[in-house]
């Protein structure tokens, strides 16, 4: 059993909350945030770690020998990054096996830098992804390539706006607007057998899939508040995408979406 002085306990609390904050900011589900923070705190010598995960902050209290230390961290959304989640989890497992001490854990957590895939590779893959969706909806080759062009350009716009820290709702609405403008050109010039399939498939890169799945699994595992917050966020994103689509089909004079 480790003996913790007050300063040491404060340090353990800070390290644990840092791990939780990183997980929260990069889109881990609430159960994972809770478990990882608690396990890290216990591995570093606290008697127990109590935490409350809310949609924009985490509050954590460490207990040791009847002494409580509480701290709060605000969590800004940094975008989904699974590599960060993996790294924090690995550090937690290493600390649990007593391979790392408080200082090393802190140093490693501070050193983590979000890894990003090459953006042009992502654009290419997202273009092909939406092309595959158009195939699933029954589109032919011409529709496939219309979808590819529209969704790649929309992805470039999305990356540019995200890079400039624009509001996500504005970002998604503009990307949907751009994609639908391009695919409605396909409808006007009658490219392929059923060009309306391209309109449906080219905006699928904007489906907030991760927040939606996280929302339901949070609620299933008892974090109702977090689940509702994520669900509302995802719904608002979907509504802004629909506003972008409706604006574009009104401008281009197309009647009906997928009908």
């Amino acid at each position, binding site marked *: 059993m480790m003996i913790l002085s007050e300063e040491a306990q404060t340090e353990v609390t800070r390290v644990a909350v840092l791990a939780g904050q990183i997980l929260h900011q990069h889109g881990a589900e609430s159960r994972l945030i809770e478990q990882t923070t608690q396990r890290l705190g216990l591995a570093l010598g606290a008697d127990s770690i109590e935490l409350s995960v809310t949609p924009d902050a985490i509050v954590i209290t460490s207990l040791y020998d009847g002494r409580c230390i509480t701290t709060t961290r605000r969590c800004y959304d940094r975008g989904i990054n699974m590599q960060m989640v993996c790294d924090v989890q690995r550090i937690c497992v290493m600390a649990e096996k007593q391979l790392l001490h408080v200082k090393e854990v802190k140093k490693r957590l501070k050193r983590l830098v*979000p890894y990003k895939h090459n953006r042009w590779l992502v654009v290419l893959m997202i273009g*092909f992804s939406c092309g595959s969706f158009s195939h699933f*909806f029954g589109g032919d080759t011409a529709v496939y390539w219309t979808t590819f062009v529209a969704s790649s350009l929309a992805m470039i716009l999305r990356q540019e706006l995200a890079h400039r820290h624009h509001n996500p709702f504005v970002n998604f609405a503009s990307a949907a607007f751009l994609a639908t403008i391009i695919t409605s050109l396909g409808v006007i010039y009658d490219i392929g057998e059923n060009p309306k399939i391209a309109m449906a498939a080219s905006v699928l890169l904007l489906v907030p899939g991760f927040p939606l799945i996280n929302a339901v699994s949070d609620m299933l595992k008892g974090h109702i508040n977090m689940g509702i917050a994520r669900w509302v966020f995802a719904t608002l994103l979907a509504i802004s995408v629909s506003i972008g689509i409706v604006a574009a089909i009104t401008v281009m004079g197309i009647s009906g979406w997928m*009908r």
Partner: protein
Amino acid sequence: MDNFLNVLSLFLIDAWFAWIPAVGFAMVFNVPRKMLIYCAIGGSFAHSFRFLLMHFGMPIEWSTFLASACMGFVGLYWSRKYLIPRPVFTVASVIPMIPGSFAFNAMIGLMEINTGGYSLELMQIVMENGLRTLFILTALSFGLALPSILIYRGRPIV
């Protein structure tokens, strides 16, 4: 025999087209490069399995549930093996099954009711697409969460 070959070829084409969105979205979520191959395998497995179940007449919600439950258990195995949290593989693998167009269809229907006035056809579109989105999505997440709900029950997996 002819029928079997026909289904097999449709199954393989489905599996081929399903790995692309799984990897594409995994890259948007910044899944580490070494793990992308598992997202590809998982994505094509889950979507083609669902295709097979739907081909034999199972409703889309139940086939989605079974496919994502299988994916949850496969993810459990990989996650224990590589000591990596499960959502890293599983969420990207089920992304091809997310009911995106149903969701957008429902929302656009709502907006058309606002601009063009209420009509039974529009309301039918909104309700059918909205409910389908809701049920498919719940089936998807519930299937993925099945291992931790049934087997681990609150204990950490990794």
